[in-house]
């Protein structure tokens, strides 16, 4: 906790974002930097689970119609504090991991590397692809009264977005 609060509360930002065309399709790597605001951390300590959601959509331009949706992937992390053991538990799918501090727990959800966005067959050599990416603290998964009481509070509005066009692959 001391570790977290010692950081200056910097503006949340997407420190790196990379989409790579590889042998096994399209992969995405990103890293974010943000600190849990005081209100959010307080809620976490009181046992409110926090949900972080990363979502990426691969689109392709279409001049004659709405852009075509090629693929969509999303990841949801759940961070919860266990007061009995004073540990922070991060769930991702079926995986659970415990951390001794909030900072460790949050750092575990801040970055993803080699996230597969599309299968090799889904993306051809042409251009016109672009990726819409968002990373946010999802409050819609919170209990409803909680949502109502935090409605409009800036602490809870953590949201990062990026749209990146895909470069055409280099000629072999």
């Amino acid at each position, binding site marked *: 906790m001391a570790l977290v609060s010692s950081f200056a509360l910097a503006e949340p930002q997407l420190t790196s974002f990379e989409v790579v065309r590889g042998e096994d399709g399209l992969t995405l790597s990103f890293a974010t930097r943000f600190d849990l605001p005081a209100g959010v951390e307080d809620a976490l300590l009181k046992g409110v689970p926090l949900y972080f959601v990363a979502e990426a959509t691969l689109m392709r331009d279409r001049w004659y119609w709405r852009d075509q949706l090629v693929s969509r992937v999303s990841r949801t992390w759940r961070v919860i504090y266990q*007061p*009995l053991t004073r540990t922070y538990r991060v769930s991702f799918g079926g995986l659970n991991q415990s951390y001794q501090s909030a900072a460790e727990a949050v750092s575990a959800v801040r970055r993803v590397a080699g996230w597969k966005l599309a299968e090799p067959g889904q993306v051809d050599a042409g251009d016109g692809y672009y990726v819409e990416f968002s990373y946010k603290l999802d409050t819609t998964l919170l209990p409803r009264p909680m949502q109502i009481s935090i*409605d409009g509070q800036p602490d809870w509005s953590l949201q990062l977005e990026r749209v990146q066009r895909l470069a055409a692959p280099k000629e072999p």
Partner: protein
Amino acid sequence: MTKASRWAWVISLVVVTGAALVLSFLLAIATNNRSFYEEHYSWLFWLNLTVAALLILVIGVAAVRMALRVQRGKFGSRLLLKLAAIFALVGVLPGVLIYTVSYQFVSRGIESWFDVRVEGALDAGLALGRGTLDAQINEVSQQTLLAAERLGDMGGDVQPLALERLREQMAASDLAIVGASGQVLLSVSRTTELSKPERPPLSLLSSARSARVAAQLEGLDDDGSGVPVAGSPSARIRALAVVPSIDVALARQERFLMATALLPATLATNALAVQSAYREYQQRSLAREGLRKMYIGTLTLTLILAVFGALLLAVTLSNQLVKPLLLLAEGVRQVAKGDLGVKQVFGSRDELGGLTRSFADMTGQLSEARSLVQRSVAQVEAARTNLQTILDNLTSGVIVFDREGLIDTVNPGATRIVRQPLSAYRGQRLEEVEGMEAFAAMVWRRFESHADAAESGDRGHWQEAFDMQTGANRDTLSLLVRGALMPQGARLVVFDDITELVSAQRIEAWSEVARRLAHEIKNPLTPIQLSAERLEHKLAAKLEGADQAMLTRAVATIVTQVQAMKTLVNEFRDYARLPAAQLLPLDLNVLVAEVLSLYATAQEAGTLVFSAATDLPLIVGDATQLRQVIHNLVQNGLDAVAERPAGLALVRVKTEVAHTEQGAVRAVRLHVIDNGPGFSDKVLKRAFEPYVTTKSKGTGLGLAVVKKIADEHGARARLMNVVVTDSAGAQGIPVVCGAQVSLSFSKFALAPALTVAASTDTAPAH
């Protein structure tokens, strides 16, 4: 608004209100079931908000309409407004009251959930659990440390049997010797499973290396819902202790003793329950503002829906209630304007409907009564017109006086008789009419005396003859006046002009007198004449000279006078007892020519002129009598012009035929016209009466005889002055320049039988 659109309104209102109520109910139900509520709260909220907005819109429109109506003063709008306000008040007030109470209830209720003591208890419980777990961990790590030291003391390789013995001493579930990098070298287990224990995490290894012993809790996880994660290993404590090595040779090889002790299941469950409750409480506490907002929002929305529903119902209900009243009032207005047409009936069974029905019945009866009155008025009018016609055509004069003695009704007969425009004096007293003062005085006097004598005499009427001077010539009229009392103090005076009647009576009396006189006088005349002649016969021879001449002259005088007297008496007798006329067909022209032949000298002198009409039909008459008539008339004419110088005197005898409009013969007329001095007005009226004459000599019976004979022949005799508006006279004042006597014969002989048979309608009645 048409009936259809009104229905559409009502139905839509009912639907909206129903939807609102159902939604409110859903909201309430949802509030009972928290998870359902929280899940669906959002859309329910917005839906309700939409419905509320719709209701506001509807109510706003209705309010604006109503305000406009009130402002325009549309009939019934005020009543509607009043009723709607009352209903709305009845609906809204309890709603607001319940809302206020519920608001307080919800606010306090939610706050009361969050109690400092409850929070403290939960904190304490968590701390207790934590402490218990810490104690367990401590114990396991101490035992592990002791066991590790014991193993170190034993030295050399650790035998599985020794390890098993140690495990049993420690009551651990697994015991293992772990290498420096965490690899399991040897393990014993309580269970017979052959599975090797997990490698310790590196963090644990490093902390054990530095602190000789380290322990951690594993598997005590929940996913936030308060129950252990399914399929996860049961909660256990893993402790790692450094096994001291006394063997120098083996000092390089670090070894650890790893013990795994299962946490008692009840302890784990309880601890997790405490943690779950704590977490729940904290979350709830964080979200309490939200909860409060939710409940209050639900409550407010329900209130709004209820209130608006109540308002709409109020408007609809009051509309329903007001409708028959409006119908009634509209009907009353129409009746007040005089429209008694068929009234609308409100088709409900309640008293209001009955009221409209009764009203419609009443209006119908009124209408009937009015038409009845109109009919009777028309009848009265007709009767009045009848009466008026009768009055107008009555020859008698009728005057009705009202209670004050003012002239109320005058018929044309009265005007004609008194020759005064009496109808112009309507509303005035009779005395104010010029020339009627004496008449009025007589009338009032008679009425008064009649009223005095009412008890004794006959009450109905009185009657009196009255002579009145009237007209420009102060003619004397004989009136027979009859008075009667009418209802309501009005008085009726009826009078007849009996001048002619009196005249006829006079003629009758004269006839009688003449007959007697003639008889009485005629008898001694013949002896007188004979005696005188005998005197002369006897004495003439005896007398001489002058005496004889005197006798002869005296006797001649006597005889002449007696003869004259005889003639006079004969005339009287003739007048008194004319023989009955023997009516035979005769030609008037022939008759006139025959009479005129006696006046040959006058004809030759040009004084007498006869102009005969051609095609004169035969009339019926007594030739002897008619000869007398013509003779009388011609003699009269000649007498009248006798004073005029010869040459200027002229008597014209003229016959003519009068035709009806259809061309049939109506009358044969005989005119005798002279240019003498004419008659004075007074004589003109009574010329046909006996002994009325303008001549110095004559009996005055000539015209009376003419009249009498004319009457016998059914002929009409008229006497008039020939009036010429002399151009030389001043300002066209009529100047009398002669007299004319006309006889109209309307009885014709049947000789031209074809003519009579062909046109019976033109045959004279008499």
